[in-house]
């Protein structure tokens, strides 16, 4: 347990120290800033579509850190050294999921809070948006870790990662953005179920990819 905390702490510190954490945040805020310029400052239209746009921006922000999640440590032999010390691929992938969420989830929620002001979202709608993103960010982090592990070592991994993420993220988008327009919390519950599923399979899928790339 102590060694897992050590690994997570190293990853989180590295991510915040290198500034990699703030790239998705800046991207997210830029997208939210540009949208009102593109569709015009009509308050009713912004209220209606703003939540959906913020959700799409969150998906796209997921893609930005893909190439830095697994590839550098894999190339540098860090994972090899962990395996030699008796850690399993699944544990390594699970630790990566937690550390990636810690440097991706909270900053993205902060950015969503700031960006919602630009869309004029407030009150219950703002609460629902933040709740849906809070539920979905672990799943987005899990998808990012899985795709990064699958595409590690491939050329053009970035573009391939985008192609892989889109179909896998559609259920999250449907229920996440849907929770903004449907009354009640059924969409949030579906979102939570999908999020749990993705988080649960991440250590095994990403772990299998890590072990396959070693052969």
């Amino acid at each position: 347990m102590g060694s897992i905390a050590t690994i997570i702490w190293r990853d989180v510190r590295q991510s915040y120290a290198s500034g990699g954490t703030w790239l998705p945040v800046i991207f997210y805020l830029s997208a939210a800033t540009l949208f009102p310029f593109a569709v015009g400052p009509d308050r009713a239209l912004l209220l209606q579509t703003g939540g959906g746009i913020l959700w799409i921006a969150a998906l796209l922000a997921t893609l930005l850190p893909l190439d830095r999640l697994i590839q550098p440590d894999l190339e540098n032999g860090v994972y090899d050294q962990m395996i030699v010390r008796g850690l399993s691929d699944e544990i390594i992938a699970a630790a990566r999921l937690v550390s990636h969420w810690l440097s991706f989830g909270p900053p993205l929620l902060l950015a969503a809070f700031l960006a919602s002001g630009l869309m004029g979202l407030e009150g219950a709608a703002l609460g629902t948006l933040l709740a849906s993103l809070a539920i979905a960010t672990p799943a987005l982090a899990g998808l990012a870790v899985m795709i990064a592990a699958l595409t590690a070592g491939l050329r053009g991994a970035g573009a391939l990662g985008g192609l892989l993420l889109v179909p896998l993220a559609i259920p999250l988008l449907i229920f996440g953005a849907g929770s903004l327009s449907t009354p009640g919390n059924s969409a949030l519950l579906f979102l939570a179920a999908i999020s749990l599923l993705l988080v649960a399979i991440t250590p095994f899928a990403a772990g299998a990819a890590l072990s396959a790339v070693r052969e």
Partner: protein
Amino acid sequence: MAEAISCTRGGRTLFRDLTFVLAPGQAGLLTGPNGVGKSSLLRLLAGLLQPSAGSCSVPVTKALCDDRLALDEQLPLEQALRFWARLDGGGQADVAAAMAKAGLSHLAEVPVRYFSTGQRQRARLARTYLTDARLWLLDEPANGLDSDSVNQLGTVLQSHLDDGGIVLAASHIALPITFDFNLKLAPLEDMEACL
């Protein structure tokens, strides 16, 4: 330790029916031409590869020192090493001792990315010295080292052996310790293990 192991990489069998045993306090030297499977054998023993046939049992803790640095480039050496020390259950004193053994104490505060080839190699060795592993698997440990550093490496290896540790090294550069046996890998047909 290894019994009749074979290794296939990329559809090509590198070695077949290789059997050898290393006892505590023994050192083995692995030689052979490039691409014959020395690194693969070391990775296999480290548990990073599976043998395509046979079995190897390594009932002791192991450390691998290959061509990958596995240290955070932007961190000072001491902090980069401390990560592995924590994973191995060690502390600050272990890091200082390992750096001293590798002759890197004066570079403790220098970020790893500024290191020269020889200094990087010594950093890899320091990462290996940190572990309390009994079996050291060394892949070309003297690469890029000057002659003083090679002698220093020999001293550390000898004291590891005297403590009952085991060393298996693949090296083209003569290492200043006595090896108990020399495992000569040759392209498959004329392979033999000389004891």
